[in-house]
């Protein structure tokens, strides 16, 4: 009951936020909120893997960055009028989000399936280190593409259009990001309550029992990892539009770590918790950065204290529910 109230309150707050900000003449904050929504989507996607699947991925930055680069590269070629590739078939650039964003999700899904197929042969600490290492590999692969800016990143000349409707300006992108996040939360909630979700959670709690029951544990995890990677890529595509810039920094291990922090801060295995965690972490970063240049020196110890002494996450405090974990 309290959880429903919290969700309803959150949804209402986001629905009225653009109007309130406009009334307060602070519309520029909408862009900040859009960035939070994109990270919230990525954090919720990571929660499928981490909270429900028990897979500690330290490599989701790779999907966030790759999704951003797919959207950015398509826009870049569209503006240049050149082709992304000529062989084996000609792929031109596009500004249409209905093509570019599914493409970002699909590329990240394939990447996640490949990384997952190898990484899921191991578990625990190995899995953490391997996902971290593969993310680093993707980082270097992207840097090796000289036509997309290397370490300087890729400027995006103009944003995507959605079915011909330009996402220029802060409000359209905000609404699209909000709708996508809401759709994913509804979908993921249902998926985790379905047979698939129950099997995935069962395998996390007791792998041997799940195997003995005849559940295809490896395949279940691979599906969850792939889905999570694809949705994280979609979040990356939104981020690319929000910033009108794609930085290789999105692919870095720091982003992967940040996403993990968001999930844990909000409460793993709750889906809504990671959303709250993303909002809280980014808001804290914004605020601290205004106070001091060395805000990391504050955030780092605070995070440490949170991990050591504050367990269960923010969502438990707000909604009074424990996560799946």
């Amino acid at each position, binding site marked *: 009951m309290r959880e429903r109230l919290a969700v309803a309150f959150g949804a209402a707050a986001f629905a009225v936020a653009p109007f309130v900000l406009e009334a307060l003449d602070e519309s520029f904050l909408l862009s900040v909120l859009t960035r939070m929504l994109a990270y919230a989507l990525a954090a919720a996607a990571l929660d499928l893997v981490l909270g429900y699947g028990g897979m500690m991925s330290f490599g989701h930055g790779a999907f966030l960055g790759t999704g951003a680069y797919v959207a950015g590269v398509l826009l870049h070629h569209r503006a240049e009028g050149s082709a992304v590739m000529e062989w084996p078939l000609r792929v031109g650039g596009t500004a249409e989000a209905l093509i570019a964003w599914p493409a970002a999700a699909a590329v990240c899904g394939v990447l996640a399936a490949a990384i997952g197929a190898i990484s899921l*042969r191991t578990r625990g600490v190995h899995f953490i280190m391997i996902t971290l290492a593969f993310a680093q590999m993707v980082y270097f692969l992207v840097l090796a593409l000289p036509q997309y800016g290397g370490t300087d990143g890729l400027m995006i000349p103009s944003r995507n259009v959605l079915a011909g409707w330009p996402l220029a300006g802060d409000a359209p992108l905000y609404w699209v990001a909000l709708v996508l996040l809401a759709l994913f939360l509804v979908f993921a909630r249902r998926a985790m309550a379905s047979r698939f979700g129950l099997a995935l959670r069962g395998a996390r709690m007791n792998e041997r029992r799940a195997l003995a029951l005849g559940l295809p544990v490896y395949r279940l995890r691979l599906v969850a990892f792939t889905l999570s990677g694809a949705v994280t890529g979609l979040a990356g595509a939104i981020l690319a539009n929000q910033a009108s810039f794609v930085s290789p920094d999105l692919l870095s291990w720091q982003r992967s770590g940040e996403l993990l922090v968001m999930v844990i801060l909000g409460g793993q295995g709750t889906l809504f918790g990671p959303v709250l965690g993303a909002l809280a972490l980014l808001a804290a970063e914004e605020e601290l950065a205004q106070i001091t240049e060395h805000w990391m020196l504050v955030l*780092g110890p605070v995070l440490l204290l949170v991990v050591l002494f504050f367990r269960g996450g923010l969502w438990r405090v707000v909604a009074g529910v424990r996560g799946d974990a």
Partner: protein
Amino acid sequence: MTALLFVEQTLNGLQLGVMLFMIAAGLTLIFGIMDVINLAHGSLYMAGAFVGATVTARTGSFALGVLAGAAAGALIALLLELAVIRRLYARDHLDQVLATYALILTFNEAVKVLWGPAPIFLAAPPLLSGTVEVLPGIPYPAYRLAVIAVGLAAALFLGWLIGRTRLGMLIRAGTTNRETVQALGVDIGLLFALVFALGGALAGLAGVMAGPVLAVQVGMGEQILILAFVVIVVGGLGSVRGAMAGSLLVGLADTWARAFLPVLLRGLLPPAAADQVAANLGSVAVYLLMAVVLSVRPQGLFPRHA
């Protein structure tokens, strides 16, 4: 020409390998005996480099700098163990990753505050600044040979410590079964702190030794830490022998790929583009190596006996 390049790059690979070993050995020992994954291990390496460079600059003695770097690594490791890591033994690996991730953020920013964001310079000592003819007609920087020597000495020392001493016996026993060692009356807290300090000293030593070869800068710890993870995954978690084999493999693979890919690619691409592409593709080689090893042996080359 090719022979020169090959010998030179192989020695460079060995040098990277022994540096990686000094990081990976500490990580793997700490994991093996305490079941803790410490992301901040790279910060100890960074701290060693910065303290070593500062002491060298102040005193003019590189040897003092090396000692100070190793001591700083050990001391900070000890403090970390007492203040933070000790609370993480009973936690799951995720909490350990997050807590030590927070430590990395803190350490990196602290170094920025203390030393500024720009890389600082650490010169090789004058005695080792020349070259040595390793083979007739093939000169090689003396300092890099010294790094290899120090790394091999560290490996031999570790081998002796673990294989021949009472402390090593306890470490091996602790890796196999922590509870039994504790039940036999060994002060396990003291043992953990000692192993942590040992790992810190090795990381600090590696940091100073790396100073004249690589840049002493914020973020240097994470670059080497991720490579050390690859080493551990390839070699097998918890095994010092695996760390040695993995380090040499990764060091050689990384160096060879970076050195020889540009030569190969220059035939296909314009030289400037070829160098950039090859430099980054070369970095990918070690991860491909890891993927191949994992698909054949998921537990690494030298798995610890479970």
